[in-house]
């Protein structure tokens, strides 16, 4: 399994989202669980599907497809949730990623990882660690600290598939400082 002794190898776990294969560092992946009911968190961008109960712990579930500008993931029999660990504002946090299927564990040496091209991929270059050619496929290695940062997740995304006449975000959630003071 060990390739060239010259460069260190890292393991990645790959998964499928909307037909494309992505991978994250295996050290960041905690487990893969069956998709279960998620509860929506109000006033969240469309990429945050909601929260799920992971053995008594409340874990946010992210639909990366939405973040990548694709149609939302359709939950099917094969839909899973990949639980990853990332640091949000200095706090170790577990997040779930909706995935269409599990790929493989990839062992890649540094020289097998190429810089991602500036365009052409669904993901912005700064959110990628690079990409690797595995067999005939290209696998994009995600920088999950970047792509799952609160700033990135909570960014006012492209107008989601909200129903016509859907209400505005919670009024007063931004600005309007005068209303904040007079609480009981």
């Amino acid at each position, binding site marked *: 399994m060990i390739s060239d002794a010259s460069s260190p190898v890292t393991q990645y776990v790959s998964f499928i989202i909307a037909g494309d294969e992505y991978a994250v560092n295996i050290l960041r992946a905690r487990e893969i669980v069956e998709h279960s009911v998620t509860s929506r968190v109000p006033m969240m961008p469309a990429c945050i599907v909601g929260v799920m109960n992971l053995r008594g712990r409340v874990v946010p579930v992210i639909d990366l497809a939405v973040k990548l500008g694709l149609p939302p993931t359709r939950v099917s029999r094969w839909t899973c949730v990949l639980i990853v660990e990332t640091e949000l504002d200095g706090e170790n946090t577990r997040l779930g990623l909706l995935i269409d299927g599990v790929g493989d564990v990839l062992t890649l040496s540094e020289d097998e990882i190429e810089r991602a091209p500036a365009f052409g991929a669904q993901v912005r270059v700064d959110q990628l660690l690079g990409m690797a050619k595995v067999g005939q496929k290209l696998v994009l290695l995600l920088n999950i600290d970047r792509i799952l940062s609160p700033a990135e997740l909570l960014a006012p995304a492209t107008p989601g598939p909200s129903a016509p006449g859907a209400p505005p975000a919670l009024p007063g959630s931004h600005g309007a400082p*005068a*209303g904040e003071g007079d609480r009981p």
Partner: protein
Amino acid sequence: MDCDRDELLQTFMPEAHEILDEIERALLQLETGRDAHEVLQRIFRATHTLKGSAGSVGLGGLSELGHAAEDVIEALCRGELPLSTPVVSLLLETVDAARRLVAEVERGQAERSTSYREVVARLEEARRGGLKAKEDAGAASARRATEDDAEGATSLKSIRVAVEKLDRMADLIGELTLGRNRIARTLRAVRGEAGAALRDEMEEQDRLCKELEEAVRAARMVPVGPWFRYYERTVRDLAHAHGRQARLVVVHGDVEVDTAVVERFRDALTHLLRNAICHGIEPPEARRAAGKDPCGMITLHAAHERGGIALRISDDGAGMSRERIAARVCALGRHPAPETLPDHELFSLVFEPGFSTATESSHLAGRGMGMDVVRRSVESIQGTIRIESREEHGTSLSIQLPLTLATIEGLSVGIGGERYVIPLRAVLACCDLPRGTLAHGGAQGLMIRRGRALPCVRLRALFGLGGSPPPDERVVVVAHDGAEAGLVVDLLDGEGRTVVKPLGQLFRRVRGISGSTILGDGSVAMILDVDALLGGVLGDLGPVDAPDERRAAPSAAGGSPG
């Protein structure tokens, strides 16, 4: 032999803590000037006991310290030494030195440090009447007052348990409940005698589980009395360091509160007390000139209220000046015409971030130094804070805190497939939404309840859940800011105590949601923060420049059936 001594030490340690606490309290009481002789006698007796016990378990240092202190106290009793602030300060330092020695023994280091010798020397010097106020004494005591907060925890006959362990227990009980629910569901299908017997067993298990949950909850509760009394010393030391005189009066009525609340409110409370001393209480001369007692009084009052605890921190100091705060608000451009605001709204502006900078706040009559930090920490534990002040008469801060952060009593409601929990302390009543009200499907409107107009918010629309509401909707009437408001939901699910799960960093800024909980069927429900939710809605209806479409909503609902 060592075994015997260990056992003796085991019984001596808690006793030592209690005696030292008692001495400290008495020393503080000494400064009020009442029954000085009787209090001195008490201090003498306690010191004597401590000295004797320390000697008998072979703690020479502590015994030596006690002996030196005893001499000074005896001289005070006989009137050979005048009772003065420096003497009391020195005796308080002696208490600190003794605590350090005790702490070392507890850590198994058997009186290693020798710093107490310096205190002994000064006590001996004081006995000879040669007490000189150490120049840095004030600074030292102020440092102690602000830094050593963590050591102020109580030393009752108890053990310390890391809060994480208690959290873990609460988590496990939550999981246990979920598991039990699953078993109960399966059991319902079991027929015959065996099924009935199992169900009976299950009922007994249920009872035990509930009791266990209650016991763990109770284990997290600590009385606020010792916590508050610790600040008597802080206030005294801080006041001296700032050239003020102040004492703290604690009224706590045996209120108990979750340790997590204490931990997370500790810094804010220190901050507020420091503010009261630095910006509230005037220097003694100014107080005398104003016809007040030169010694300022800060009251820390706790009571059970609305299922939580209500704290009031009030001082009889200078109060806040409307003009100066208004001027500052103008300078910051926070409000076009602050003079027109009622008191509570104007004063509440001091909670705005960056309201005052450290250098300016001391010139400004008010507080405001880091008040935004205080408000944030109060809100982070689902509390609220309100400020009231009268110039010349003092300032009072009312803080409402939850009893516990671990569980809440909540009313579970359903909207579409989603479940939400409304804290029961906010719920006043439930009723049906009259047909035809809010028929436009919008987020806000008015309904008639008991002959009065009740502003309503339809959560389905507010949360953007989509779909159309069922023909019969329910209204949960909640208290908000002294008035009532209705939350329109699809159905009511019943009430119960639920374990609060923090939502974590990602959802920290979601307004209107204070946390989440796991329901009996294992799904997650959001816990609503009614005040923040309605605060956001009402703020939008106020004179702030709000988008017009939303302003139009209430008028559209004017035609509700009479």
